[in-house]
């Protein structure tokens, strides 16, 4: 049966709203989260054509002009356009947060798999270390790393990445321990599959699915940690456009009431973190039907 494009669209749309009926509010959480994330990602990708000014341009208009007219979100004390800085700032924060989440997931998942699969002394020691790091305030650890490594995009990414390794480790190790005892793993062993084959071909694919949700929530958290580091003046050199740094700069003008300098960067950090959180929450609840009873 062939569909016309209009029919196909209508079918897709009814399927879309049908999902909403089936899953209730969780589906809409997922959709709204996806829209926020996609919007900010496209903002970062097409920053050049969206931003009206160069974010470093110190001669875009009057100093500390309130929002309105030519400057959608006003200007800062160096006569830079706040909206353009918001648009370009999305690149920095997305790059750091996503890259950090990738780095920590690769390390965390690999170590968790190996540790859970091999067991024994190695597993015990590594678990103890990971549990200790996990219990420690992530931000303080990131502050220590960032302070030691000095400013820079790569350094701040590493500082953020380190603190999430235990999250993946604990999740994947627990899963590996459970899956290791499954019948199909035993069957694989019985037909003579080697340890690494079992680990990567049998256990890994079954573990990876559960990390998707954690990854999304991890990006959300990494966004807030990145912004926190740069807000504290630790993460990045001033030549880079970043929401956290703009917030720290705008903070000085709070007592005199220049609200736009702090309102917009902070709102964007919240919005981006919210987008990823909603995406993760939506995934979690839809992938786990047991939670849906609630």
């Amino acid at each position, binding site marked *: 049966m062939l569909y016309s494009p209009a029919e196909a669209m209508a079918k897709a749309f009814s399927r879309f709203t049908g999902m909403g009926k089936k899953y*209730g*509010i969780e589906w809409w*959480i997922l959709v709204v989260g996806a829209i926020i994330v996609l919007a900010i990602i496209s903002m970062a990708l097409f920053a050049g054509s969206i931003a009206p000014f160069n974010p470093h341009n110190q001669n875009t208009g009057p100093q500390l002009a309130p929002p309105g007219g030519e400057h959608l979100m006003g200007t800062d004390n160096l006569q830079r356009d706040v909206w353009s800085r918001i648009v370009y700032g999305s690149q920095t924060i997305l790059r750091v947060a996503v890259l950090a989440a990738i780095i920590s997931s690769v390390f965390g998942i690999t170590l968790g798999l190996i540790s859970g699969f091999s067991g024994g002394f190695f597993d015990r020691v590594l678990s*103890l*270390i990971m*549990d*200790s*790091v996990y*219990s*420690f*305030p*992530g*931000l*303080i*650890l990131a*502050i*220590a*790393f960032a*302070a*030691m*490594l*000095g400013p820079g995009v790569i350094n701040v990414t590493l500082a953020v990445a380190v603190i999430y390794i235990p999250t993946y480790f604990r999740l994947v190790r627990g899963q590996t321990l459970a899956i290791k005892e499954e019948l199909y793993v035993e069957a694989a062993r019985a037909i003579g599959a080697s340890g690494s084959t079992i680990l990567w071909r049998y256990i890994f694919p079954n573990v990876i699915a559960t990390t998707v949700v954690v990854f999304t929530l991890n990006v*959300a958290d990494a966004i*807030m940690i990145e*912004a*926190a580091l740069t*807000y*504290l*003046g*630790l993460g990045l050199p001033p030549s880079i456009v970043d929401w956290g740094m703009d*917030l720290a700069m705008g*903070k000085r003008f*709070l*007592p005199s*009431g220049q*609200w736009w300098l*702090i*309102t917009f960067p*902070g*709102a964007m*950090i*919240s919005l981006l*973190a*919210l987008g990823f*959180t*909603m995406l993760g*929450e939506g995934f979690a609840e839809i992938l786990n039907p047991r939670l849906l009873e*609630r």
Partner: protein
Amino acid sequence: MGNLTRYVITRILLTIPMVFILLSIVFVVLRIMPGDPVSSMLGGHAPESVIEQKKEELGLNRPIAIQYLDYLWQICRLDLGESMVFKQRVTKAIIEKLPATIELTAFGMIITLFLGILMGAYAADKRRSAQDNLIRLYGIVIFCIPVYWLGLMLQLGFGVWLDILPIAGRTGPRVLASTFEKTGFYVLDTILAKDFFALGDVLIHLVLPSFTLGLVLSGIFVRLTRANMLDVLRADYIVAAEARGIQHRKIVYKYALKNAFIPILTMMGLQIALLMAGAILTETTFSWPGMGRLLLERIYLRDYPTLQGVIIVFALIVATVSLIVDIIYAIVDPRVRY
């Protein structure tokens, strides 16, 4: 030996390796990682000989294993060394600043628990209603708001626009510092000194910072309470209580909430890390003279011994609190034993 005693002793023994590992991680991060404290402290242009001399003085030229043992021994003696920038013992600097942070986190925690648990219980009671969805949305949204930004916005609203609350510091200019020499906990000090004008001043300075901290963390407790309450509300004894005709409100907020509280208590132990991180950021926003401010000030000054000391103290606080929470948990719930 009773069951409980054995649990407590095992739990304490398990804390020791955890603290040891945390201390080792701090050592690795601050000493072995790239970045040379001495040259960065003296600035990039210091002559080689000066750097060497300073390194020798601080014992940084010894083998790393010796430095590590020395570091551990120092901590065992509760001595955190001397500041590299000021002529001041690190321990003293920390003791001066610690009460401010504890005061802030304590008030923040009270607000978090109050808001979080009440809203969570209410949402669970009204499961899948509009109120429930609204509260769940609140739980997600508030958690995504960076604590420092919420602080700035509250400062803007209540401090600058409405101009009714102070936005920085622990006291106003008219309160004498001599009132606060006993414990360093200003609320306690002013009560002890029976200076109620000062107490009012201290409390009003606490409002915005502790609300900032409390609001952001309340989201987690909303979710936790709601999830636990949903489990409890489905239990047979709740149905039985309903059948006996006990007031619904009493069942939810008295019977069910009491039972849901145990898992919430354990989570409180885990949230202490978030609370500490939140406190650091809140302190920066509100110029609150606590541990977070100390940490950051000394990072800018490249004062590594103080930096190290502050991080160690944070590690010890986290370990101690989770130990205490677990012990309370075991006392409250007799099923928890090793």
